[in-house]
C-alpha cells in the first residue's frame, strides 16, 4: 500500500502525467455521461445541414444535419473503448506469452522470439488493414485485430521482466518451497513484472485510437457507430467549406492520444524515475 502511494506520488509529481490524467478524466466523464452532456442524439438528423458553430450547435452540424458536438461526445465512448479493449487484449496476450517464454525458456522462447521478430517485419497497419478490409469492419473485430497484432512489444517487455525476476530471491524461495510453476507465474512474476507493460499499454491505447481513425479514413470503420475517425472521413469532402466538421473531431483525436502519451510517460516516470520518460518504440 505504501509502495502504491509512493507510486502515485511519483506519478503525480510528473507534470505531463498530471495533465494526461486530467484530460483522461474529462474524456471518461464525457463518455459516461454522454446522454446528459450531449444536447442532441448522435444520429438525430435535422434540416440544419452544414451549419457553422453557433449557440445552438457548439461545433456546428454535419452534412446530414447531425450535431457535431453531440457526435464527438458520443464518439468518446467508441474511441476510449477502442483504446481500452485493443490495448487490453494486447497486454493480456503480451503478458501471457512473454511470461511463459521468459520463464520456461528453451524451445518455447526460441519460437516466441522468432514470432516477435517476424512481427517486426510486417507493417502492422497493413496487416490490420488487410484483415479488416477482408473480413468486415465491425468494431469488435477492429479492436480484436489491433489487439492481436500489437502484442509483440508487450511480450518483449514482459519477457525481459520475467528473465530478471526469475533470478530474484522471492521467486527462488517460492520455487524451493515447491510452489507450482503456474502459481509462481501468476502470483509472483506477473504481479511484480507487469508495470512496464501497463505503461506501454497507455501508449498503445493512443496508437489504437489512431489506427481506428486511419481505418475509418480508408472507409473501413464500423458503420453502426460514431467514432472520431469516421467523422473525419465523412467530413473530408466538406472540409473546404465546413472546416468545423473536420477540425473538431481531429482536435479531439489528438487530445485523446496526447492524454494517453502523457499518462504513459507519467507511468514510465513513476516506474523508472531516473529515465526522463524513455519510450519503447
Amino acid at each position: 500500500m505504501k509502495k502504491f502511494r509512493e507510486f502515485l506520488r511519483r506519478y503525480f509529481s510528473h507534470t505531463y502525467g498530471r495533465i494526461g490524467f486530467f484530460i483522461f478524466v474529462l474524456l471518461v466523464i464525457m463518455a459516461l455521461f454522454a446522454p446528459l452532456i450531449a444536447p442532441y442524439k448522435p444520429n438525430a438528423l435535422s434540416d440544419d445541414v452544414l451549419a457553422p458553430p453557433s449557440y445552438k450547435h457548439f461545433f456546428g452540424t454535419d452534412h446530414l444535419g447531425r450535431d457535431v458536438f453531440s457526435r464527438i461526445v458520443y464518439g468518446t465512448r467508441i474511441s476510449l473503448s477502442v483504446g481500452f479493449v485493443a490495448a487490453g487484449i494486447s497486454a493480456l496476450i503480451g503478458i501471457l506469452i512473454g511470461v511463459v517464454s521468459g520463464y520456461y525458456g528453451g524451445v518455447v522462447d526460441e519460437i516466441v522470439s522468432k514470432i516477435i521478430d517476424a512481427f517486426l517485419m510486417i507493417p502492422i497497419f497493413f496487416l490490420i488493414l488487410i484483415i479488416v478490409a477482408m473480413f468486415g469492419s465491425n468494431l469488435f473485430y477492429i479492436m480484436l485485430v489491433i489487439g492481436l497484432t500489437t502484442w509483440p512489444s508487450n511480450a518483449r517487455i514482459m519477457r525481459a521482466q520475467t528473465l530478471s525476476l526469475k533470478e530474484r530471491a522471492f521467486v527462488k524461495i517460492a520455487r524451493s518451497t515447491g510452489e507450482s510453476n503456474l502459481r509462481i507465474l501468476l502470483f509472483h512474476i506477473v504481479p511484480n513484472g507487469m508495470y512496464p507493460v501497463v505503461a506501454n499499454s497507455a501508449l498503445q491505447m493512443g496508437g489504437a485510437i489512431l489506427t481506428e481513425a486511419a481505418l475509418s479514413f480508408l472507409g473501413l470503420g464500423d458503420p453502426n457507430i460514431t467514432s472520431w475517425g469516421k467523422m473525419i472521413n465523412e467530413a473530408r469532402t466538406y472540409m473546404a467549406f465546413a472546416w468545423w466538421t473536420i477540425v473538431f473531431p481531429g482536435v479531439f483525436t489528438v487530445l485523446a492520444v496526447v492524454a494517453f502519451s502523457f499518462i504513459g510517460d507519467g507511468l514510465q516516470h513513476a516506474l523508472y524515475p531516473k529515465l526522463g520518460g524513455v519510450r519503447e518504440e
Partner: protein
Amino acid sequence: MTAGPPAVFQGEWNVSTFTRYIIRRLISAGVMVYIVMTVNFFIIHAAPGDPVTIMAGIEQPSKEIIEALKKKYGLDKPLIYQYLKYMSNIIRGDLGYSYVYDQPSWTLISERILPTLVLTLSGSILAFVIGVYLAIFVSHLRLKFGETIASVISYILYATPSFWLALIMILVFSSKLKWFPTSGMFDLRHTYVGFRRFLDFLHHMVLPVTTLMLIQMPVFYRVTRASIVQNQNEEYVVTLTAIGVPKEKLFKKYIIKNAILPSITIFGITLGFSITGAALIEIVFAWPGMGRLMLDAIFRRDYQLLLGIYFLMALFISIAMIITDIVIALLDPRIRLT
C-alpha cells in the same frame, strides 16, 4: 596475477567472421521472409472475394467472364498448387503476375518504387536530422522553456493522424496561402525540362515531404532527448567533468555520440518500412507511390501483386535491419556482430 587479455579478445574481428555473420543473417532473414510470405499468402486467399469477381464488378458481372478469367489465371486450381507455384516463382526471382493489370508484378512495382522512395527517404531523413538536431539543440541550450515547447509540439505531432495533417496542410498551404501545389509530382500544364523540371518537382515535394517529416519527427526527437537526459546522468559524465573536460566538448564529443545510437536504430527500421510507409499521405497528395499501389492491390485482391509487394517489403526490411545492425556495431563498440 597479471592482467591477461579478456575473453572478448580471443577472436579478433576479421573479414571471414564478418562474411559468416552476413551469411547467417541473410539465411535467417530468408527464413523470416518465407514465413511472412506464407502467412500472407493464406491470409489473402482466405479473405472473401477474388480478383476476378472484383474485376467483373457489379455493373455487369457475368458468370462466363468470371469463369473464363479464373481459368486463364489458374485461380481454379487447388490453393496448395497455387501456393507451391507462387513460391517456386519467387525463388526464381519472379514476383508474380498481376491479374488486374496483366503485367508482371515487378514491372508495376518498379514504376512506383522510385517516387515512393524519393518521398519517404527525404521525409525520414529530414525527420531524423531535424528531430535529433532539435533534441540536441534543446538539451544544449538548457532552456526549460524551449524544452517544454519542443516536447509539447512533439507530443501533439505524435498524436496527429497523418491523413488529417495532410488534409490540413493542403487546406492551409495550397488553398489559403497558395504557396505549393496540392498534388502530384509535376506541373502538367507546362512541360519543363532540365533544371526547371527538377525545381518543379521539388516544389511539388514540399507538402508531402513536410507532412511525413512532421509525423515521423517526434519519435526521433523524443528518443534522442530521453537518451541525452539519460546520458547526462551517466557516470562517465561525472568522470569527464572531474577531469576538466569543458561542458561544450563533453556534450558535443561524448554525450551526443552516446545519445544518438537509439535514434539510429529507429531510423534504420523506419527506412526499412519506407516502401509502403506513407500510403495515406500518398492518397491525399495523389503521389504515385507504392503505398497506393498496395492499397489498390488489397482492395482488388490482386493476389500476386500484393504478395510481390510484401516480398519486396520484407526483403527491404530485412536488409535495412542488417545494415542498421552493422552501422550500430561500427558506432558502438559494445555491440558485436554475432
